């Protein structure tokens, strides 16, 4: 064999392998439920609109934050089981804003968008390093005044504090009650908060635990 032929052959074989692997992997991807997704495009990544304001409200001594993107592709099946639904495109990679105070991590901020009765609601969540909620804020919504008043009410949002991924978040039971017309949007927020905590718990898994979860699957 001539010099140089072997490396070229290896390179081509490697490219062919990844190409075929990619195709097969795509074929194995679960299909989205047409009922849920065919009518609307996936929602774009939710921006964090007022970081300074939210940091002051949720992590007062914070000096800065660092954005991390965690790829949770290998844990998709486990996460789906826990969520009871398919993952949204903005949940993988999962974006975590690490909040710091003089180099020490205080917790994380998660931003998400949820479908509510009259439009999308954007939520900002502050999460402690142990995975419990420090606070929840609504950064954008387009609900009528009664509903908006209920879901942006500080005392209602304070009900989330101390909850974790395993907590039940039923309106009127685990969280303060809201007027009947706001219940649907409030439950959407609660479900979304729970879902974010679940994905966060997987995204924060140490490498060994991740591997165990994947092997188990």
């Amino acid at each position: 064999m001539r010099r140089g032929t072997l490396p070229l052959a290896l390179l081509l074989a490697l490219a062919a392998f990844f190409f075929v692997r990619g195709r097969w992997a795509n074929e194995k991807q679960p299909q989205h439920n047409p009922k849920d997704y065919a009518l609307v495009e996936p929602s774009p990544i939710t921006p964090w609109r007022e970081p300074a304001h939210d940091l002051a409200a949720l992590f007062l001594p914070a000096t800065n934050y660092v954005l991390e993107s965690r790829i949770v592709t290998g844990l998709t099946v486990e996460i789906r089981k826990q969520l009871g639904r398919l993952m949204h495109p903005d949940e993988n990679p999962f974006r975590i804003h690490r909040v710091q105070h003089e180099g020490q991590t205080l917790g994380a901020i998660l931003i998400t968008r949820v479908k509510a009765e009259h439009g999308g609601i954007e939520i900002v969540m502050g999460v402690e390093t142990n995975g419990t909620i420090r606070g929840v804020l609504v950064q954008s919504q387009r609900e009528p005044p009664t509903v908006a008043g209920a879901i942006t009410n500080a005392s209602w949002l304070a009900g989330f504090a101390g909850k974790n991924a395993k907590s039940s978040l039923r309106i009127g039971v685990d969280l303060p009650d809201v007027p009947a017309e706001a219940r649907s949007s409030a439950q959407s927020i609660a479900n979304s908060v729970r879902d974010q905590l679940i994905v966060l718990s997987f995204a924060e898994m140490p490498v060994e635990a991740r591997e165990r979860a994947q092997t188990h699957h």
Partner: protein
Amino acid sequence: MLTLVLRNLLRRPLRNGLTLAGIAAASAVLVCIVAFGDGYRGTLRSELERSGVQMMLVPLGCPYDAAARVLQNNTLEHSLPTNAWEQVRQDPAVAVAAPMLMAASPRHDGRRADLWVGLDETALKLKPWWKMRSGHHWFRNTNEIILGADAAALEIRVPGDKFYSPEVRREFRVAGVLERNGMSDDNALFIPLATAQQMFGQEGRLTAISIRLKDPALVREAAPRLQKIPGAQVVTMTEMMGTFLNLLGAVRTLVLAVAAITIVVSALSVFNTLLAGVIERTTELAVMRAIGASRAQVFLLLVSESLLLTLSGAGLGAALALLLGPRMEALAKTWVPLAPGGSLLTISAESLLRCALLVLCVGALAAIYPAWRASRLQPAIATKSE
């Protein structure tokens, strides 16, 4: 000669393969850019012709600014009275006159705004690119709304959902969601014209009127008549198209500069490959010269190697462009101003040929020095130094 050239190229498969890949990538980029420029111009022209809008009536002010704002669904500071619409419709040269009212309502954070476009049903005749992703094609009552693709994705709305605007305190029902068309329609909230006028306290006012004439040749005759409508001015689509193409020209120059850099890099790669080949094959070339090969033959041999390499690269690049072109088109549509709805990429035989010729010229130029150096080898000195 061709067999010799082929054999020489196959002797260093990795090096020549990588050079080939570089040329192919540069060639693919060039083909896509040329095809994109041709496609954009053609599609824009056909879209404007298809829509049949020959002119727009806008309030007094800078006509180009006004027409560009209207076409991009931006609001205007001034407005036209509804009787201007009546006057336009009564003009003997006018076939379709579609009135519209645009308004922006700032969101509560003050950094964003909802962009409302009030339309009359005649607008459908002038918006052939409108395709519904889902739902109804038009409003069934005054409280229905049609959302652009981005607006629907942001608010996670599907037909039948409620849509509330806290700023204007009004609830709508989503009638339909538009297919993404790469235009400013993607972010807009479309509502019936009368609803928009009432919502923004603009009863009897319009932002613009799109006009299709019975015969495009009547533009010169109709424009002066319509210009006489008080507070209004006419902008023809020919003038607007010139503005868009100038805008595209600036983008195209920038992208062509990037393509030029990739071509130069691939030319240097060819140059490097050939020069390395000449240095490695000094003895061989000297022997060729010693057994009777002329300088011209050695020169031609090296140039042929370069041409074959670049020609293969151009072929591979054309295949890549055909394969990846549609994906690049989707990407380009997101940043090109006022991207028309149709295909922006027109890869014609002519554009392929033009790009192949350019790449061949670059290959030939890159081969000159290595070929000259090879042809200048002195057999006695070269073999002795080996």
